[in-house]
C-alpha cells in the first residue's frame, strides 16, 4: 500500500467520535487492570518463593551417636549431603547456635555441654529440593544415627497457601484476559458498527473490502495501542509509587514488581493491539459481507 493510499485510508475513518473513545478507553481500563493482575501474580510468586526459601532453611539432619562415633558419622553425613543433588549448603551448627535454638523450650540455664545432645546440621536446599526418600535411605545406610527432618509438619500448610495464592493470581490474570478480550472485541465491533454509514458509502463508490477493512483495522488497533499504553503507564506509575506509600501502610510494602519483572508490562500494549487488530479485522469482514 502506498503512502498516499495509507493517508487516504486513514482519512475515510472518522478521527474522533464516541466509538473511537470507546476503544481507547476500554483498552486503557483493561490494560490498567491487567497491570495490577500481573503485579498480583508476580508478588504472589515472590511471596511464595520467599516463604519456601525461609522454610527450606529450617531443614535439618540430626545425628545421635555415641561420642566416639560422632565425628566419623558427621563427616560421613556431610559427604552424603555434599553429593546429594538439591542441597545447596550443609553446615554443622555450633553449640551456641544449638543452645539458642533450644532456649525457647528449655530455657537458658540447661547445661547443654554436659548432655549427650545430638549434633544438628542445618541444610540450605535449592528450590527444587533433594529427593527426600532417597536421602533418608542413603543416610540410614551410611550413618545409622542420622535422621533427616524436612519439617514437613511446619511447612506443608504454608507451601500450600503460597501455591494457592499464586493460583488465585493466575486465575485473576486469566479472567481479566478473558474480560479484556470481550470488552475490546466489543468496542472494536461497536466502532465498526457505528460506522455502517461510512462502510456503505465507500462500498457504493467502488472501494474494495480490503481497503475498507484495512482503514478501520488500522485506526482501531492504533487507538487500542494508544489506550493500552496509557493505561499501562498510569498503572505502572501507581505501582511505582505504591511501595513508597507502603512504607507507611505496612501490608503493601512488598507489593509490586521488581527489576526485570517490570519488563512484563511492555507486553501488555502490543498484546492489546494484537487483540484489537484481530477482533476488528474479523468484525470488519463480517460487517462488510452484509453490505452489497
Amino acid at each position, binding site marked *: 500500500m502506498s503512502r498516499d493510499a495509507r493517508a487516504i485510508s486513514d482519512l*475515510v475513518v472518522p*478521527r474522533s467520535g464516541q466509538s473511537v473513545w470507546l476503544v481507547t478507553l476500554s483498552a486503557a481500563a483493561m490494560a490498567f487492570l491487567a497491570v495490577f493482575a500481573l503485579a498480583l501474580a508476580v508478588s504472589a510468586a515472590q511471596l511464595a518463593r520467599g516463604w519456601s526459601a525461609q522454610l527450606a532453611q529450617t531443614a535439618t539432619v540430626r545425628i545421635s551417636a555415641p561420642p566416639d562415633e560422632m565425628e566419623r558419622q558427621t563427616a560421613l553425613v556431610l559427604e552424603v549431603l555434599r553429593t546429594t543433588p538439591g542441597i545447596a549448603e550443609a553446615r554443622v551448627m555450633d553449640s551456641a547456635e544449638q543452645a539458642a535454638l533450644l532456649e525457647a523450650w528449655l530455657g537458658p540455664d540447661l547445661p547443654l555441654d554436659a548432655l549427650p545432645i545430638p549434633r544438628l546440621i542445618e541444610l540450605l536446599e535449592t528450590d527444587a529440593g533433594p529427593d527426600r526418600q532417597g536421602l533418608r535411605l542413603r543416610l540410614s545406610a551410611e550413618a545409622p544415627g542420622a535422621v533427616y527432618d524436612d519439617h514437613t509438619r511446619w511447612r506443608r500448610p504454608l507451601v500450600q497457601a503460597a501455591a494457592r495464592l499464586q493460583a488465585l493470581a493466575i486465575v485473576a490474570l486469566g479472567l481479566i484476559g478473558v474480560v479484556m478480550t470481550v470488552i475490546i472485541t466489543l468496542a472494536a465491533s461497536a466502532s465498526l458498527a457505528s460506522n455502517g*454509514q461510512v462502510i456503505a458509502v*465507500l462500498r*457504493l463508490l*467502488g*472501494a474494495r*473490502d480490503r481497503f475498507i477493512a484495512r482503514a478501520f483495522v488500522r485506526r482501531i488497533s492504533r487507538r487500542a495501542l494508544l489506550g493500552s499504553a496509557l493505561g499501562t503507564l498510569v498503572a505502572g506509575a501507581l505501582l511505582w509509587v505504591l511501595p513508597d506509600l507502603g512504607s507507611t501502610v505496612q501490608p503493601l510494602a512488598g507489593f509490586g514488581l521488581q527489576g526485570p519483572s517490570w519488563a512484563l508490562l511492555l507486553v501488555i500494549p502490543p498484546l492489546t493491539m494484537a487483540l484489537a487488530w484481530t477482533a476488528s479485522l474479523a468484525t470488519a469482514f463480517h460487517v462488510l459481507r452484509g453490505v452489497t
Partner: protein
Amino acid sequence: MIVFEDVSHDYGGGPLFRDVSITLGAGSFHFLTGPSGAGKSTLLKLCYGELIPSAGRVSVMGQDRRQMTRDEMAATRQRIGIVHQDCRFLDHLSVAQNVGLPLTATGRPLPQGDLTDLLGWVGLGDRADALPPTLSGGERQRAALARAVIGAPTLLLADEPTGNLDWDMSQRLLLLMMELNRMGTAVLIATHDMNLIRFAKSHVQARVLRISGRKLTAAGAEL
C-alpha cells in the same frame, strides 16, 4: 451497459414490478418516471447491484450480477456514478473531499483543477471546505451529483437529482449530465419533474420509461 431480462422484484409484500426487460446501451439517455412508491429507486438499485432481483437476470457491464464476486462488483462500481435519493456523505470529510472520494477511495489520482471546476459549476465553490451536515438540502444534491460525475463514469444513475433545487439550478445540472452524455456516458435519471424531461428532450435524444401498475412502459407520446 445494463440489460434486464424478465426481471421481477418483490420486497416480501407482493411483487413491485414484473417481467421487466430493458437494455440501456452505451451513450443512451433515459428518464425513469412514475408515481411515488412505484419502484423507481428499486430499479436503480438493481442497476448498480445493491439489490439482486427476485426473478430474472440483470447484467451490469456485460457481467451477470449474480455471478459477480465482491471485488468484481467493486471494480464495476468504479465505472458507475450514482446520485442517491438520500445523498449520503461521510460527515467528517469536507464537501471537496467527499466529492473527490470516488477517486481517492479507489486509489485513482484526483486532479485538483477538475475538482474546483466541478464544484464551481454546481455552485459549491465557496462551500468546498464545509462539512456535509451544514449543507442545505439543495446543496447536498448538487454535491452528490458532483461526486457521481467526477470519475467520468461510463454509466450515470441519478435518483431524483433535482428534487430540492430551483429551476435554474436544475437546468444547470441537467446541462452537466447532457454534456457527459455527449462524451459517451449512458445516463438514467429517475425524476418526477416533467419540466426537466421536456427541457432535456428539446436538447438530446432521450427516451422516457414509466413504471406504474407493476409494469414498465415506454412513455413519451403524452409529453
